[in-house]
């Protein structure tokens, strides 16, 4: 989903930076607060940061599509550290990828932060919280959050490209065409993202439930979501 350097016109590039800024500011604010509140927060944050960096740069071959694509990692991070800190982690990861790995671009960084960071995190976090509040099990809620969060990232990238490049054609039609081009590779990978997300959350719950309780992901034995 990385939009490469120079693809977006200047006004759109600036607009996406402007849209991403408040989310990054909230992420920084949350970082200072939560590091003081939660003893295990720093290692969890570091683990999520490294995971997003690896996962979002890993080209996985999808035989049925004949192309390579990558999951995002942000829905998983959002469930564990919150959507704004997950956005911040995605921004750092995207910056490194743009600078040193010819992945994405500096002018398109704002748009990439919005799609992978903001939308991936908010959709993943929102779906997880909604399903947990309806009594859905931890693993299933995390899995669906990962699946839908991943698809939302690619839908957003399609929308960003369509808005900037549709020209005289309807933006919706162009957006759907781009999303349609992503889907053959991304549908299977979104399922993989769901499996990874569910696996991670379930693993933490099984081995260190205290972390999920400290982070506010779960209330305890019942696994309920904190209000």
């Amino acid at each position, binding site marked *: *989903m*990385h*939009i*490469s*350097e*120079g*693809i977006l016109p200047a006004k759109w590039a600036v607009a996406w930076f402007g849209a991403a800024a408040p989310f990054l500011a909230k992420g920084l604010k949350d970082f200072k607060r939560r590091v003081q509140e939660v003893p295990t927060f720093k*290692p*969890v944050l*570091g*683990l999520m*940061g*490294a*995971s997003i*960096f*690896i996962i979002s*740069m890993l080209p996985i*071959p999808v035989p049925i599509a*004949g*192309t*390579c*694509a*990558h999951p995002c990692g942000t829905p998983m991070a959002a469930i564990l550290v919150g959507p704004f800190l997950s956005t911040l982690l995605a921004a750092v990861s995207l910056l490194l990828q*743009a*600078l*040193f*790995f*010819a992945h*994405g*671009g*500096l*002018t398109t960084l704002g748009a990439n932060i919005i799609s992978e960071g903001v939308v991936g995190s908010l959709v993943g976090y929102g779906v997880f919280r909604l*399903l947990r509040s*309806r*009594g*859905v099990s931890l693993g299933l809620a995390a899995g669906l959050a990962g699946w839908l969060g991943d*698809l939302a990232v*690619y839908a957003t*990238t399609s929308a960003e*490209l369509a808005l*900037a*490049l*549709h*020209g005289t054609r309807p933006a919706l*039609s*162009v957006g*759907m*065409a*781009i*999303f*349609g*081009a*992503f*889907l053959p*590779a991304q*549908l299977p990978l979104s399922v993989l993202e769901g499996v990874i997300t569910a696996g991670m959350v379930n*693993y933490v719950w099984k*081995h*260190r439930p205290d*972390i999920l309780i400290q982070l506010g992901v779960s209330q305890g034995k019942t696994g309920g979501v904190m209000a």
Partner: protein
Amino acid sequence: MNRKKRLKTPSPALMIVLTLLLLAMAATAFAAGAMAQEKPKGSKWSGTDTIVEKFAEDLGGIRAREPFINTDQGDLLLFLFALGGFGAGFTSGYLWRTLFAEKQRPVDV
């Protein structure tokens, strides 16, 4: 000894949510597939980022610029990917060990 576990019946609300999600997904896939007749084809095993670039070229005549720091030269990018993978993998492993493998000591208050 009855070792059979009773299977829980999923709640109607969950079934409705899952059914709606699957229907929405199927509809989106169908609609997007139908509207993607002009999708540009990349080379075998090209990344989806290449698809984005081809769309940009086809739609707006815009070609991706060279990165500000162009590491896509010879084996340099391969080296950086290996280095990045090693660094992130090492960090993940170290923190994983800190969180899950080391014996947890009671926190002094």
